[in-house]
């Protein structure tokens, strides 16, 4: 007589039950873990990068420091004031000239743009990326 026919399958019911329960609980825990990990991404840190980029190019524009359209000059002005814990890159696109400093980084960084009117009435768009070092 085999074990199955002698004892039937009833003996396994608790193990099966706990296995199913564990499976469900583990799925719930994993889902919670993923959701909490996602919610832990620091949205305010990203907001700080957006704001400091906006501040930087607004201030430079107000002070006429984008008017030269020269990437070295603009880069120097940026490095002069941007806190040392940030990296940057920018691309200034005007009708007849494009100035670009650095390469556009890949990954989860934030870029933004601003319309700039120079002293010579050039209409340009500056696109910039600011991210922590």
């Amino acid at each position, binding site marked *: 007589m085999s074990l199955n026919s*002698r*004892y*039937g399958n*009833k*003996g*396994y*019911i*608790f*193990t099966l*039950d*706990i296995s199913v*329960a*564990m499976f469900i*609980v583990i799925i719930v*825990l994993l889902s*919670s*873990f993923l959701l*909490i990990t996602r*919610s*832990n991404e*620091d*949205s*305010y840190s990203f*907001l*700080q990068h957006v*704001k*400091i980029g906006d*501040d*930087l190019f*607004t*201030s*430079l524009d*107000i*002070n006429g420091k984008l008017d030269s359209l020269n990437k070295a000059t603009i880069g120097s002005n940026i490095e*002069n*004031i*941007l*806190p040392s814990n940030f990296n940057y890159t920018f691309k200034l696109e005007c009708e007849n000239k494009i100035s670009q400093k650095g390469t556009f980084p890949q990954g989860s960084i934030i870029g933004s743009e601003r319309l700039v009117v120079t002293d010579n009435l050039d209409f340009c768009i500056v696109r910039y990326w600011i991210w922590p070092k």
Partner: protein
Amino acid sequence: MYKKAQVNTIDLIIAVSLFFVLILSFILIWDNYAKKLDEKVKYDNIAEKAIKITDVLVNTHGIPDDWETDSENVQIIGLTSNARIVSDNKLEEFVNLDYNFIKQNFNIEAFDFYLKVVDSNNKIIQIDDDNVEIGIKPSLDSEDVITIQRIIARGGTEVVLEFTLWK
């Protein structure tokens, strides 16, 4: 019947053991997540306040517009005179305000803050020989500390306003 009952008992013991291991793991993980969530809520709260305060400081004139002429009746403190250009008069008046009055105005009575304005050499700027800084610096023991840096235009140059909110 006797042997069958034995099998069920062993199975029950295994099942109950697994159950307790699972419950224990669940409690530990839950506790860990609850702590993380609590920290995040506290950090978000302080970060949101700091960002909103610096937004008002660097983007608005304040209410009334010329509050620096009668700083005792200021309703909202803003530091700019024109669009995004900081006013020296407002800065000077701001750092002379009472620390607790500013905390009350910013609605951050439960926190402490430190604000300074630095130039491109990271030196605190001066207006009429007075450093533009106000507040209490956080200590190494301070738990929740956030510093927001904002760049503002000032007289043809750019300066960095650093606002630290801590508890």
